[in-house]
């Protein structure tokens, strides 16, 4: 009987099997992404991810940009007209004491589909009384829709053209004037960009009107020093490499940052539990007697205890973050299947001659355990670590799906759980679930493939009989 030797054999086992090489290759890519994330995306994830204002300029649930290449359709991306791109005309009329400001910008809309949302942001600067604001959209067919005409309440106003009820009412009137009556819900972002025909008010049948649009904002203010700037955003339906979610997060950043978190979490939990369980197994076999009896009984008790329910219970009662979670996982898996296997492997090691030699020259029991037995267990421990990582990555995801994960750090599991609870499955926002799911699966697959190459180390009984 020959026990597989040291770590060098382990590397040989990986490099001599196809699955091992593929696994390592995938793992290197993921590690590369992690390093890339840490170095090149200087991004304070935790605070920025949870700050909605930071993501304001992204469209809601937009698909990844590369969808355009697959569908062959020119899906709109976000058009943002910053304040400096607006043409500004202002003049003051002494006689009436009124100041007229006109902000005007053109944009080309040549996409095959409608924008997902429209927003105008107005930064007004007034001293005495509030200015009267008129917002108009001039279409390529020279029709002019008045979206808003009222006095503004604040110096900075966000006009959510797609959701604001007053604006919807104005768009409805615009349709009425054109002779298109509809009792359907009005979607301004569709009606305003639709060809003028009887389907204009029908969001399902409306056809897109391509061409050059103009957004015109007119202010009537009361003081000569009053001025205003504006910003216009026509949100698209595609964004970035990985799309966006319901809270407008750029998923690419979340996914890239998920890699180091997943690796760190999975590896640290796997390393700690494998080492502890193996050590206790070796201890149990080497000392024998009462120690063996106790470790074996405690292992059996641990195997009856419902691990996942306890973990859920603890994360429910105490607000825990990712790293406390690891500590709890380790505490709940001090003993387990690995303890039993490590014990039987240790029995095999104990029967070897160099242990006998060590005993005969008078090495202490503890010395033999740490310097003679544990190093021989190392390949087995490493193989187990590799095999255990996916389970912990998925465990974090499972807790997230139950709503018990770390509420602040964007992990792959949390992105999936957000998608799941926002009904991404039913609405068909596939990228929001599929991309993080693919990443988790690829990571798990990498470890599984390497683990398969190390099978004979992880299941020593399997090959030796």
């Amino acid at each position, binding site marked *: 009987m020959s026990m597989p030797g040291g770590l060098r054999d382990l590397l040989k086992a990986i490099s001599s099997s196809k*699955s091992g090489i593929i696994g390592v290759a995938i793992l290197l890519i993921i590690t590369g992404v992690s390093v890339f994330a840490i170095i090149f995306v200087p991004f304070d994830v935790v605070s920025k991810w949870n700050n909605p204002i930071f993501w304001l300029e992204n469209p809601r649930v937009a698909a990844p940009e590369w969808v355009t290449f697959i569908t062959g359709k020119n899906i709109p991306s976000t058009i943002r007209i910053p304040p400096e791109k607006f043409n500004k005309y202002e003049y003051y009329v002494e006689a009436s004491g009124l100041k007229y400001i006109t902000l005007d910008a053109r944009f080309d809309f040549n996409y095959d589909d409608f924008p997902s949302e429209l927003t105008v942001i107005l930064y007004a600067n007034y001293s005495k009384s509030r200015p009267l604001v008129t917002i108009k959209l001039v279409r390529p067919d020279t029709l002019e829709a008045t979206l808003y005409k009222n006095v503004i309440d604040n110096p900075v106003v966000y006009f959510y053209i797609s959701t604001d009820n007053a604006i919807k009412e104005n768009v409805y009137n615009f349709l009425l004037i054109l002779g298109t009556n509809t009792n359907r819900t009005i979607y301004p972002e569709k009606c305003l960009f639709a060809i003028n025909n009887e389907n204009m008010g029908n969001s399902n049948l409306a056809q897109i009107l391509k061409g050059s649009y103009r957004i015109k904002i007119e202010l009537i203010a009361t003081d000569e020093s009053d001025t205003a700037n504006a910003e216009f955003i026509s949100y698209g339906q595609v964004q970035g490499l990985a799309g966006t979610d319901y809270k407008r997060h750029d998923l690419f950043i979340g996914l890239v940052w998920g890699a180091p978190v997943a690796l760190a979490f999975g590896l640290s939990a796997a390393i700690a539990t494998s080492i502890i369980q193996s050590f206790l197994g070796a201890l149990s076999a080497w000392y024998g007697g009462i120690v063996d009896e106790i470790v074996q*009984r405690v292992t*059996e008790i641990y195997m009856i*205890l419902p691990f*996942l329910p306890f973990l859920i*219970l603890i994360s429910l009662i105490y607000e825990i973050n990712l790293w406390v979670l690891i500590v709890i996982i380790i505490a709940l898996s001090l003993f387990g299947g690995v303890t039993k296997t490590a014990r039987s492997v240790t029995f095999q090691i104990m029967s070897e001659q160099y242990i006998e030699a060590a005993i005969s020259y008078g090495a202490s029991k503890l010395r033999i355990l740490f310097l003679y037995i544990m190093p021989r267990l190392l390949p087995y421990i490493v193989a187990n670590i590799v095999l255990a990582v996916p389970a912990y990555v998925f465990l974090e995801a499972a807790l997230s799906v139950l709503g018990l994960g770390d509420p602040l750090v964007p992990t792959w599991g949390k992105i999936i759980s957000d998608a799941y609870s926002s009904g991404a499955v039913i609405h068909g926002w596939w990228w929001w*679930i599929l991309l993080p*799911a693919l990443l988790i699966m690829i990571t798990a697959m990498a470890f*599984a493939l390497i683990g398969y190459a190390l099978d004979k180390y992880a299941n020593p009984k399997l090959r030796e009989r």
Partner: protein
Amino acid sequence: MKRVVFLILTLIASIYLTIIIANAGGLIDQIITSQIKYDIRTNLARTPGWSQLPEEDKTRILQERYNLTIKAKGLDKPFFERSIIYLYDALTLDLGRALFLTSASGTKQVSVIILERLPRTILLFTTGTIGYSILGLYLGLRMARRPGSIFDRITTMFAVITQAIPAWFFGILFILLFAYQLRPLGISIPFGGMVSVPPPTDPISYVLDVMYHMALPLFTWIFSIFGSWAYITRNLAMQSSAEDYVMAAKAKGLSENQIINRYILRPSLPPIITSISLSLISSWQGAIITETVFAWPGLGTLFYQAIESLDPPVIIGLTVVYAYLLVITIFILDLVYSILDPRIKVGIR
């Protein structure tokens, strides 16, 4: 005999640990008592005439009601004393009453709540476990017949990859596929719940409706596990096919099926039976996350509801039932082995 004593001690210790952890070492008591106090106070404040009462009357009534509720819930004794009572009740399978959860029939008896959910979990997960065991056994033996063949290698890779991915994860992906992506093709498979709302009235269409709802979770459960089963069976069969007596049987000119049935399958049966019986038992516990993903109202969901509403009696009840089943099965397996294989003696491991 020694084995039996140890099994019983293991059972007692694990149930007691469950009681401690499920009550978070008494912390849940504090949460519940303060909740009770708050409920009583808000209830009384809504009663007409409450504000006119003198202050000492208010305190007295509040205290009286509080004491009564605490006593009714059995929270008046110290936690340690109660944990011992809980242990005794649990061991005698007197599961007691839930604090908050009720069964559909309206009782708070934990045993009724569990029994109400059990058939649903058995329906889904035990069917699934039997399904993947048979499928895995069949595929595993086929793989072992020609190790290294393309079929063997593909199934092994499938097993290696699927065993790293949990069932609930496949569940989400399949829901995405069937609930949305295939909808334009006219395929719509229900992906949540156990029956339609409202449920059909006549028994036949009710059964059909349940089966229709069961299709996707059952498929997911079998899909995610049968690969690793096939792989385990394959390895066990490979071990026995390397034995000398298989060689001898081959030399005798026995047919391949005879060799598989008599010389390969039979010696690999003990570990296979162990794994099947253990996974059958754990299938009765349901799968918390898979059931949650598919909104399947079984024991897994019950476990989660109990945890969510901080209802220790239900958590303990579920664990006790599971622990009993597990320990009894281990004992029976030991007995069966000692009968099957005289080399194994109960008590010596």
